[in-house]
């Protein structure tokens, strides 16, 4: 036996963490920044192509900025829009990390939100300290169970989760329509499908109403930050997270390591659904106050972009959620101030994703922004 390391010096050296190299920094910070810039420029060109004059374009970008971060109200709107996107995005990120492409957040939001609404209008006289957590819990559990169906189908039968979550989305739309007409859910005296209103004791309290009652930002943003921390802890600090990441990176290695793939799939889907369910709860308790058909409003689909943009990392998802929240809030302002279509915001969002997904394209467009490209394509 020759032990090459009698003094332990070598092993100490191996514990030194290398400073993050320049390429990683560029990928994480500079590429997204440039991507946003390019997307805005291309957005302007799109407006030009549709005969919007330069002054209006300038005005609309000023509106975008003002509407997203330009005032207290703007920031409040940005945060309000970011919370559900981030929550659902975290759930999807969890799935991506474990190798599951869950696109059922939309349905999970609906089902979770519906359960929350029912609990939210059902217990008059219950103290808020119990009622609110109970309503949130109902959303998380319902969303989690709903998503586990897809997880279970995958684990037990191999049915691909992309297909089954799409189907579950479609089922959830009709399910909500049906439920909203049930006598004990539908608001009295209404013919259209609208649920009863959430009681005040279950509402997520507005945070800044003492300044101005119109500031909509509510306690849901604490939920958002807590979820970011919890998902970070789960993924990178726990055994379960290690198992999730291993199954996502290499199912063969996970099997070799003795991890139980089926159980992990159901768990991941359940947790992802719970986070999406919380996003739904956040909407009905903090913004809408009741459920209507399609109250998820596409958040579950935007959350896919948020998760991808955030590279399935909790911090990244938070930043992406905030960016999308800002675009949404600013986009509304753009429409009001400059009269350009809200669809343009959709175009800009899509462009940002395209450029972030293609870092080489961004590097090629801005060669001076990056250290000289050394190829590492074959690693």
């Amino acid at each position: 036996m020759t032990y090459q390391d009698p003094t332990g010096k070598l092993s100490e050296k191996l514990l030194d963490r290398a400073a993050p190299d320049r390429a990683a920094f560029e990928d994480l910070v500079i590429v997204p920044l440039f991507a946003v810039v390019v997307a805005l420029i291309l957005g302007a060109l799109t407006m030009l192509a549709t005969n919007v004059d330069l002054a209006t374009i300038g005005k609309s970008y000023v509106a975008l900025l003002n509407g997203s971060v330009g005032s207290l109200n703007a920031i409040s709107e940005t945060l309000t829009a970011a919370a559900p996107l981030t929550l659902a995005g975290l759930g999807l990120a969890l799935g991506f990390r474990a190798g599951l492409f869950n696109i059922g957040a939309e349905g999970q939001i609906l089902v979770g939100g519906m359960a929350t609404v029912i609990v939210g209008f059902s217990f008059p006289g219950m103290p808020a300290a119990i009622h609110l957590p109970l309503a949130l819990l109902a959303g998380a559990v319902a969303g989690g169970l709903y998503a586990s169906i897809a997880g279970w189908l995958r684990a037990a039968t191999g049915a691909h989760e992309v297909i089954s979550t799409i189907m579950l989305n479609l089922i959830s739309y009709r399910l909500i329509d049906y439920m909203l007409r049930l006598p004990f859910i539908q608001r009295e005296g209404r013919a259209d499908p609208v649920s009863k209103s959430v009681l005040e004791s279950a509402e997520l309290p507005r945070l800044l109403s003492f300044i101005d009652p119109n500031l909509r930002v509510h306690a849901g943003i604490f939920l958002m930050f807590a979820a970011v921390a919890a998902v970070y802890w789960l993924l990178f600090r726990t055994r379960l997270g290690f198992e999730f990441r291993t199954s996502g990176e290499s199912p063969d290695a996970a099997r070799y390591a003795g991890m139980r793939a089926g159980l992990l799939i159901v768990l991941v889907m359940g947790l992802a659904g719970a986070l999406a369910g919380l996003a739904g709860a956040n909407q009905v308790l903090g913004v809408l106050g009741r459920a209507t058909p399609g109250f998820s409003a596409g958040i579950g689909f935007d959350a896919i972009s948020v998760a991808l943009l955030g590279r399935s990392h909790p911090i990244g998802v938070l930043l992406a959620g905030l960016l999308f929240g800002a675009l949404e809030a600013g986009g509304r302002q753009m429409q009001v101030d400059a009269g350009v279509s809200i669809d343009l915001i959709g175009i800009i969002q899509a462009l940002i994703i395209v450029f972030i997904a293609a870092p080489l394209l961004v590097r090629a467009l801005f060669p001076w922004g990056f250290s000289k490209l050394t190829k590492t394509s074959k690693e």
Partner: protein
Amino acid sequence: MNIELRGITKRFGSLVANRDVNMDIRAGQVLGLLGENGAGKSTLMNVLCGLYRPNEGQILIDGKPVAFDGPGDAIAAGIGMVHQHFMLIPVFTVAENVVLGVEPTGPLDHLDLKKAREQVREINDTYGLEVDPDALIETLPVGIQQRVEIIKVLFRSAEVVIFDEPTAVLTPQEVEDFFKIVRGLRDDGKAIVFITHKLNEIIEIADRISVLRGGEIVGGGDPSEMTEAELAEMMVGRPVSFAVDKTPARPGEPLLEVRDLVVLRDNDDIAVNHVSMTIHRGEVVGIAGVQGNGQTPLVEALTGLRQVAGGEVRFKGEDITHAGARKRHQLGFAHIPEDRQRTGLVPAFSIAENMVLDCYYDDRFSRGPNMLWKVVNETAARNAAEFDVRAPSVFEAVRKLSGGNQQKVIVARELSRDTEMLIAAQPTRGLDVGSIEYIHGRIMHARDEGDGVLIVSSELDEILALSDRILVMFEGRIVAEFDGATAEKSKVGLAMAGAVA
């Protein structure tokens, strides 16, 4: 076509993989490239074939400097590389794979597969490759897949052909055929670069050698004037002993008992056909056999990765026939799997994470739901140092390590655990002679501590050097048994070929 590398330096961050390397590659010659794991051989060749751009230095082709902007440029210049990990599309045919990227097309971009097939046949005939252009890649054995890679390179009219550890995955017979092909290419005037850790191969085939250590050229010359011992010393910088330090085995009680084991392949063919064997404490049992005779399914069944169709497996008297991988780990199994990149490692994870891949749940590494990353990192650093894993730190992603160092991560993980039964498939694949010496020593050490050891290897020399008992597997059955101390290579070889079946 002659190539000169002048002062090539390639850095990855602060790590210098190649430092001021000068090298000549000449037409009609085989250049053997030797060096320890992580010496920078693959990196240098990736620079030559345009995958990496050097930080400093120049490549001259026939005296004229060239700059490659990507592998496309290198291919256009006539440089082709057969990588260690093949880059073929399994569901495509041979011809489709060969023309991929340079498809011959007719009017309206119609893919002219007929022409492709003809061209493949032509290359086949010229170099005696004997590959069916219509066969699906996934149905071909590794040896033939490698030929497809060679055809791919020749199809792009390469004048310089680089082979990165081509023989690591080949059986002895396939190696012979491979050498015939290489000689044919050389006699045809092509320049060949050949990377290997097997010194006898270098002596057999190389006309000249260059030796890299720590990224720098430390020697070279004519291998026919050198012995294996000299070559080894030049590589690792110290004398290397090839003989395994082996005391006679003192087998104890039976540890792993296998009775009438039947294992099926994915397509329900019988892979392991009523195999019985017993492995005792304190002995090394080697399973010799040409690849594809059921060794892989046998190992998978014994480690709990493949369902058993019949028979019984007992460990220390306990029936574990249907126990899963986790259960066996906990009972004290260590497993060095055959396919390191797919099974044994998660390439995107750090060395530290990989070092606990199958023991992260252990009390030492986790408490409650939490991982104790500090302990993991320290353990990983100790293991990496002990097993000479060359890396800047344990936080480095495993995919950035050289091939041999990846293998060392697996071996370090499995051998540093407190185990009772070691099952190792190709434990030293891709390792340099110095590391092989060390790992063999560790395996004998485990044996002497009372572990049972089962080695599966296509290297007959490795089986002979390590085993106390040798079982020969042929078409799913154990067809012969030899005593490790007295076994003759030729007799084992005959049994492997089915002569006693």
